[in-house]
C-alpha cells in the first residue's frame, strides 16, 4: 500500500468563468511509505495545489487521491498526516508547548497525555527547555522546528510540507534541513515536500518531482542517489552536484520568463 496515490487528478479553479485557471492537469503520482519526495517548479505551477489536494484541503476536479489506502477526506478526518507551511504559522498566544499540543487537543487527548507528547516532541527537535516560552521569543529557525514538531506530534506516517524553510536565511536553512532529515529518519516518516530551492530538493529527497505551469503538470521524476544517511559532507559530494545539475536542466525547460508577467488581481 503506497502512502499517497494521486491518479489522473486535475484541478480547475473558477471553472466556467473568465477567470478559469487550469492549476493541475492529469497528474499521477505515487509516494511509497518512507519516501522523501520533493515537488519543485516555477511559481504558479501547482505545487501547493497538489499538496492541498493530498491534504484534502481542496477537492480534485477530476481524478482521485488516496492516502494510506483510504480516501484523502477520510485520511484528513483520521489525521493521518501532519502539515507544515512556509510560515511557521505558530499561534502567538500559545506557548511553544501549547502550540504543539493543538492538534492533540483537537483530537480530544487528555491533558497529561498531550503535555507528555509535546515534551517528547520538543526533545526530538532539540528544544526541550523552551516549552513555556512564546513563539515570538524564538528565532525563525526555532519557530520552524516547533512547527515541524507540531506537524509530527500526532505521529502521522505522512508529513506534508509547503516550502517550510522559505523564510530562513541560507545558513539556518541548511541546518534545518539536516534536522528534518534526522527526525524523519528517526520517526520513519513519509514526506511530501514543496520547495523552490534546487539544492534543498536534491539534498533532502529520494525523488524530485519537477513540475511545469500552464497548465500545471509533472514533467519529470528524478531519482536522487545519495543514500539514506546524509550529512553536511553530502553537500560537497559530486553526486549532490550532479543531482543539482539534473534538476536544473529539467527545470530549464519549464521555466518561462515569468518575471515579466504583470501581476494579476488573484495573485497571492
Amino acid at each position, binding site marked *: 500500500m503506497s502512502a499517497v496515490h494521486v491518479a489522473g487528478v486535475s484541478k480547475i479553479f473558477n471553472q466556467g468563468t473568465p477567470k478559469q485557471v487550469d492549476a493541475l492537469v492529469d497528474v499521477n503520482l505515487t509516494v511509497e511509505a518512507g519516501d522523501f519526495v520533493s515537488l519543485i517548479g516555477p511559481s504558479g505551477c501547482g505545487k501547493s495545489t497538489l499538496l*492541498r489536494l493530498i491534504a484534502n484541503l481542496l477537492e480534485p476536479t477530476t481524478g482521485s487521491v488516496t492516502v494510506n489506502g483510504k480516501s484523502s477526506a477520510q485520511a484528513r478526518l483520521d489525521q493521518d498526516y501532519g*502539515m507544515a*507551511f512556509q*510560515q511557521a504559522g505558530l499561534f502567538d498566544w500559545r506557548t511553544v508547548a501549547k502550540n504543539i499540543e493543538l492538534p492533540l487537543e*483537537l483530537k480530544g487527548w487528555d491533558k497529561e497525555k498531550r503535555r507528555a507528547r509535546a515534551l517528547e516532541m520538543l526533545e526530538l527537535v532539540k528544544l526541550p527547555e523552551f516549552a513555556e516560552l512564546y513563539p515570538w521569543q524564538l528565532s525563525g529557525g526555532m519557530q520552524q522546528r516547533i512547527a515541524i514538531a507540531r506537524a509530527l506530534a500526532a505521529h502521522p506516517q505522512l508529513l506534508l510540507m509547503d516550502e517550510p524553510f522559505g523564510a530562513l536565511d541560507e545558513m539556518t536553512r541548511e541546518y534545518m534541513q539536516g534536522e528534518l532529515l534526522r527526525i524523519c529518519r528517526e520517526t520513519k516518516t513519509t514526506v511530501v515536500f514543496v520547495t523552490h530551492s534546487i539544492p534543498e530538493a536534491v539534498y533532502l529527497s529520494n525523488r524530485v518531482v519537477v513540475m511545469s505551469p500552464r497548465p500545471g503538470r509533472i514533467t519529470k521524476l528524478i531519482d536522487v542517489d545519495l543514500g539514506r544517511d546524509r550529512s553536511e559532507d553530502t553537500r560537497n559530494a559530486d553526486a549532490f552536484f550532479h543531482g543539482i545539475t539534473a534538476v536544473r536542466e529539467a527545470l530549464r525547460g519549464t521555466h518561462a520568463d515569468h518575471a515579466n508577467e504583470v501581476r494579476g488581481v488573484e495573485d497571492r
Partner: protein
Amino acid sequence: MTLRRAAYRTFMFVMALALVAALWEGYKLVGPKDGGSLFGVSILPRSNDTAMPHVWDMLSRYARAERRGSDTQIWQVVLSGAWYSLRLSLVGFVLGGSIGVGLAILMARFKRAEQGLLPYLVISQTVPLIALAPLVVAWGGKLEIGAFVWPRWLSASVLGAFLAFFPISVGSLRGLTSAPGAAVELMSSYAATWRQTLWKLRFPAAVPFMVPAFKLGASGAVIGVVVAEISTGLKGGIGRLIIEYAREATADPAKVFTAVFGAAALGLTMAGLVALVDLVVMRNRPKEVAA
C-alpha cells in the same frame, strides 16, 4: 510598557493639562471681555469671568458647597454622579459589547449576513440619539418579562450600548476574519469544526483588533449614557448634573465646569479600564516595536 515609560507619559499628560490651563488664563488676560471678531468672523470667545472662569475658581469650586446651605460639597456630588454614570456605562458597554461581538460572529460565519447587515450597521449610527431616546424609554416601559421590570436607568445603558456596539462589531469582524489563510487551513487540516476554529484561532487572532474597537466602544458607551441622561432626564448621573449646572451658568459659572471635568474623568476611566484589560490579555503577545 515599563514603569518609567508610564511615568513619563503621565508627566507629559500633566504638562499638557498645565499648558491648556496656561493658554486659558493667557487668553483671559489678552482676550476681549465681550468677545470679538477676527477677519470679520466673531470667533474670539468672551474672556469675562462668566464665560471663562479662572482655573483656580473652577478647581476651588469643587471644595465648596453645592448650594448655599447644603452641606455636600461639589466634589462629592460630581463624584457620585460620575460613579453612577460609570455604572450605567459599564452596563451599556457590556451590553453593546455582547451584541457587537455576537453580530461579528454571525457576520464572520455567514457571508450573506455580512452583506445584508453591514450597511445597516453603518446607517444605524446616523440615527440621531435624540430621536431614539424617547423610543427606548417608551419601549422599555412596556417590557415586563416575569419578575423583570425594566428600570429607567436601563434605557440610558441601552443608548450607551447603541453607540458602543458599532465600533465593536466592525472591529471584531475585522479581527475574526484577520486570521491568516494558512492558519485557517491548518485548522481544517486538523479536521477542526467551525466552532473549534472560532475559539482556538479566530478569537485569539482577533484580540489585537478588538482591543482598539473596545476602546472606541467604551467612549461610545459613555457618550450614549451622558446624552441619554440629558435626554430622558435620568437623575443621579453626570449628564444630568451638566444640564442642571448649565442652567446656573450665569450665576455660578464655575459650577458647570466641575461637571464637565467630571464627564472627562468618566470617559478616561472607561478608556483606562479597557487599557488595563489590554495589558492583561496582550501580555503574552509580541510587543510592537515602534518604527
